[in-house]
């Protein structure tokens, strides 16, 4: 049992629970908008950045602008200046689930020592290359394997991972359809 020591995963659960209560009482403050901008560099290389977002009823900002290069590897006849866009989806999923595990563990008073994950997504290029119209462009599936060292039983760790999936935004985005509207100005 882990009763006496203080559990610290670096997650401020009180603040999260406070935010949950506050946003339940003021649903309009819970309306967020996440944004990114992207510019083509050359070839398949592009550079995206994120900085501003909207939430709690007003404009917000990260403490700095974050930039991301995306490209494709040399076997696609590209210059490999960054991760592929689909790899960014894996990055998003992994980091979302991992953040969720930390938050849920803190709430359940479970001390984490390490949380590592490996993600693998299958893709049949016959889709994006237009070779077979029955094959989808996207992933055929995503496999995530977690290795977690924590002060908890195997069942408690499994429950952490399960709950983080249920609360994860990116898990929801990749498992459920989303309307996407693209316009040209």
């Amino acid at each position, binding site marked *: 049992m882990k009763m006496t020591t203080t559990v610290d995963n670096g997650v401020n659960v009180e603040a999260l629970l406070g935010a949950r209560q506050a946003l339940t009482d003021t649903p309009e403050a819970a309306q967020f908008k996440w944004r990114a901008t992207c510019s083509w560099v050359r070839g398949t290389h592009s550079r995206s950045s994120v900085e501003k977002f909207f939430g709690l009823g007003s404009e917000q900002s990260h403490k700095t602008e974050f930039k991301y290069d995306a490209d494709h590897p040399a076997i696609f006849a590209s210059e490999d200046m960054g991760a592929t866009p689909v790899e960014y989806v894996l990055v998003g999923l992994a980091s979302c689930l991992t953040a969720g595990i930390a938050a849920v563990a803190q709430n359940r008073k479970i001390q984490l020592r390490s949380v590592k994950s490996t993600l693998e997504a299958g893709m049949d290029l016959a889709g994006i290359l237009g070779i077979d119209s029955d094959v989808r462009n996207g992933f055929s*599936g995503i496999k995530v394997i977690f290795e977690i060292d924590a002060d908890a039983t195997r*069942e408690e760790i499994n429950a952490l991972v399960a709950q983080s999936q249920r609360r994860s935004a990116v898990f929801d985005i990749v498992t459920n359809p989303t309307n996407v509207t693209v316009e040209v100005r």
Partner: protein
Amino acid sequence: MSRNGTSRPGTGTTDVVVIGAGHSGLAMSAWLSAHSIDHVVLERGEIANAWRHERWDSLRLLTPNWQTRLPDYRYDGDDPDGFMGSADVAQFISRYAGFIGATVRTGTTVRSVTRHGDMFHVCTEQRGWRCQAVVMANGAHGIAQVPALAAKLPASVRSLSAKDYRNPGRLDDAGVLIVGASATGLQLADEIAASGREVTLAVGEHIRMPRTYRGRDIQWWLTAAGILDQRFDQVDDLVRARRIPSPQLIGAPRSLDLNSLTARGVQLVGRLVGLEGNTAQFSGALRNECAMADLKLARMLDGFDALAVRQALDISAGPERFAATRVDETPRIGIDLAKRRIGTVIWATGFRPDYSWLREPVFDQKGRLRHHGGFVAPGLYALGLNFMRRRKSSFIHGAEDDVRDLGSHLVGWLKQSPASRASARMEMRAGI
């Protein structure tokens, strides 16, 4: 009790109007009679109406007969471990009405309930009632919830709610998509698959529960562990607790889970999340939902085993664990309704109470009744809702404790002076 007033049109006066002559409305009537409080029970149809007219044919209670009881009244048949069907429940409730000598105004549909100063006005199709208090005991299952995306179903597919469904014989021979994996969804999937039709079951969050564990009915364990008596003010997340779907049980001496449906040939898919043309889209989170339900079941059984040791319970059978829920390596995330020959979609997506006649500002932004353990507003009470005061509140045997709590409060409320009632209403308005 006497009928107050005459049958001519107009407005009668009484202390309390109880809306609904199901088990909880009748139990409240018995309480009020025992405290010599003048009241009327209004019933849109006949006693136990929903049990007579709004249930599928094979439905049986999820609670065994030994558990089915009302204040001073219990099952006295020769099958305590059996499960009542709808007609049995209707008869049980009707006999209770006779036992307590209830006077019920049947065929009396409430059109509106409003407050005018110190009094409530209850309007029915026949006449009105002025009263000091209203008890809404019209059931938690008034409206079968159907998600908005049902409107996008192709016209060629028949759409049925769990209230409309009666038996497999009334369906055509085409395949059936059942949306929802609570007790309702599983029971319908089970009998429709057994009738030879192709069944696809859309599974979201669900509660897996065996019928028996270590030789005892699961309701025995839930009672012994104090889970059914858990109070609404003692749970961490009440909003969530009230939303939990009914456990995967059937009123029969057998367990019913997703594995038994898979064995019957039912195809499991994730939660229904979209309908575009003929294509139904399902969540890719099915594996996680099943893993979660398996984990929760194991935790519950761990708790029962610990309870057996702690209380030295006389149980000869040892602990057992159930096979993990089997899910395809790649469950389908899209189905073409036409290609799969799905002719009917059945929405087993839950129920909510019907308060469309209640003209008072007592609803939250999602249109749900706001209440604190059944107290809605001064003089206005609810009964029989999910986890209203206790986890068992929506069960037949849950009425006894809730009626005692709310009935005691109601008797005290009627004795209060007009001045103290006015201040209670002020506090309510100020949100105190």
